[in-house]
């Protein structure tokens, strides 16, 4: 068990080192637009890179250095200046881009190749389409009859841990993070000799669907990896919710969560995977999750 934990930590550290090297190596590319021989050449750098995102926009500020310092204290979009009473062009386009990726994430589809890579078959909740998904959270918490039959036929029963994947509110969260986080979780659990059920993908899923899932599977722990509601500019955050023996009537109070898993300013998915494995081990050890687990681990249970 200790050996498995060490392996994960080593992998995480190696990858984090790699990532930080890459970031520090990024150089600003100030060249924006050029014309040669009458040919128009517009070849722009990525305006979402930090050096552009954080550039002050105030014309003739009272205290330029002070303005930079103020901007460094918050992720809020301050120091942007103005065009009359309206935002400057680059500020406006950046905001619209940040909102745009959230919309692409919500209305996007999970890539079948990603699901195939991990042999995840697909079932669906009682939701029929994306619009119904947004307006009827209750239906997203219930499996369709067909899904129940499929799961009953294809899945191993009573494993220690059942992993499921749900699209939730961001397809990009699955497409970008699953290939990284999923192997970490599986390896981590296997090296601790924890038995795993047959994994699958649930379309139009809300977190609460794990109650329905486990009424069929009967696992000790169910984990759902699910796309979060996209925030501005961070459209691919993944959450891992897990619960001890989920069943009808259980709520978020009886679940644990690792949230904001993304390489875009959240918990790196490698690290996130390691946290999930640790949380599952703790859940198995204390036979509890959520508020109850907190009480037990703090010695009040």
């Amino acid at each position, binding site marked *: 068990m200790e050996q498995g934990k060490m392996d994960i930590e080593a992998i995480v550290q190696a990858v984090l080192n790699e990532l930080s090297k890459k970031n520090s190596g990024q150089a600003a590319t100030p060249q924006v637009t050029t014309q040669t021989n009458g040919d128009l050449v517009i070849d722009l750098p990525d305006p979402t890179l930090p050096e552009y995102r954080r550039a002050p926009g105030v014309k*003739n500020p009272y205290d330029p250095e002070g303005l930079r310092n103020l901007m460094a204290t*918050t992720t*809020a*979009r301050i120091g942007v200046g103005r065009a009359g*009473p309206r935002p400057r062009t680059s500020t406006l386009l950046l905001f619209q881009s940040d*909102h745009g990726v959230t919309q692409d994430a919500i209305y996007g589809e999970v890539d079948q190749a990603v699901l195939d890579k991990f042999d995840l078959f697909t079932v669906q909740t009682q939701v029929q389409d994306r619009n119904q998904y*947004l307006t009827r959270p209750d239906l997203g918490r219930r499996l369709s009859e067909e899904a129940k039959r499929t799961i009953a036929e294809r899945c191993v029963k009573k494993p220690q841990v059942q992993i499921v994947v749900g699209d939730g509110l961001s397809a990009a969260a699955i497409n970008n993070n699953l290939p990284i986080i999923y192997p970490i979780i599986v390896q981590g659990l296997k090296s601790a000799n924890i038995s795993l059920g047959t994994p699958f993908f649930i379309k139009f899923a809300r977190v609460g669907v794990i109650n329905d899932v486990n009424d069929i599977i009967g696992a000790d722990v169910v984990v759902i990896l699910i796309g979060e509601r996209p925030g*501005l500019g961070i459209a691919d955050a993944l959450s891992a919710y897990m619960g001890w023996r989920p069943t009808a009537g259980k709520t978020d109070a009886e679940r644990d969560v690792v949230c904001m898993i993304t390489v875009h300013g959240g918990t790196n998915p490698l690290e996130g995977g390691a946290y999930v494995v640790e949380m599952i081990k703790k859940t198995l050890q204390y036979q509890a999750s959520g508020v109850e687990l907190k009480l037990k681990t703090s010695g009040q249970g």
Partner: protein
Amino acid sequence: MLLRTKLFGSTYQFGSIKEVMAKANEEKSGDRLAGIAANSVAERMAARYVLAEVTLETLRNNPAVPYEEDEVTRVIQDSVNETIYNEIKHWTVGQFREWLLDDNTTGDMIKRISNGLTAEMVAAVTKLMSNMDLMVAARKIRITAHCNNTIGLEGTLASRNQPNHPTDSPEGIRATIYEGLSFGSGDSVIGINPVDDSLASVMRLLDMTYDIIQKWEIPTQNCVLAHVTTQMEAMRRGAPVGLVFQSLAGSQKANEAFGVSVAMMDEAYDMAKKYCWTAGPNYMYFETGQGTALSADAHYNTDQLTMEARIYGMAKRYKPFQVNTVVGFIGPEYLYDAVQITRAGLEDHFMGKLTGIPMGCDACYTNHAKATQNDIENLAVLLTAAGCNYFMGVPMGDDVMLSYQCTSYHDTAALRQLLGLRPSPEFEKWMESLGLMENGKLTDKAGDASFFLQRK
């Protein structure tokens, strides 16, 4: 009770006033989620024909939640001026609508009638109004209030400076306050939604905002939007509280989900009068929003518009300085898209004004609603034309703590310029004295947070 009409040859019959009220509503995903919406547009129209003939007396006698069961109902019913009510109880909802819109009906006349209304009457007439009806009627009703400055005056539009920060960093919040002030945002309140609701953190932010107000002699008030009990404890310990905030809901049970009651709010109001450092006499700040009762499973099969009107009836008890609906915050399962968010924003503003409270609006949306910033800009223009008291001011409309989008510091300036409005008068004088504003227009110095680095 027989409630029936024919429409295009078909007969529509309704079992109760509650059913008529729910089915007469404009389309809202939350009413569908509750299973109480009209099944067709024709049925919705049939419900409106019936509702137009219902008298105000019938509405008073059929509150959404029974008097005996619910303290919100009791607060509203017990505050009715019986003399005024007796003058109007025979009016039908259809007549009431026309009276509100009549050119001979003034704002003062409406404010008087307001004291004879219950929330169900306010909601009912709203259901019979088109969007522009809501704007025309609301525009007549000026509800002003005073704390350290005056809000709601004719010709003015105020802005809450909302400098939220993902970790409550005092430096980050201060920087954002400077940005907002430099655009003319902050006359309604400098109001922070804290991440950390603990007393120490809340008191730290109260001290910090108070210091800025003192150092720059800003005619405004501060507020940290923690749970009311935390703010009460902060007052007991001598923290400088400018406005006392709480989110409210439309039934006793829904308020319990927020951890509040009428008795608790009575106590908070008494404490505000006793301990707030500001001039008053209006000390309270409330936020509301359609759908909160349903999300707490405390809606009693009542539509979300009616439950919202009931919050305003409760809020009036505390003579608030400002109240705003957070209209698109709750998500698409209650307000699906820009059409529904726009409608709800206009409804809530009108209902607040008709109830007699100084109403503003947090015109906003979440990323999973079918809406964009353009839609929120549209709504802000409509509401400003309707006489809305204030909006939120957030850097580029992107709240980095609450993860939703609303109106921006730029929008505050643009709305004033577009519709010829000024900040609250005390605040405008202050802006002018610093050279940030001239004749109601921002100067070249404005829009620069570093301007406020001048005083150490």
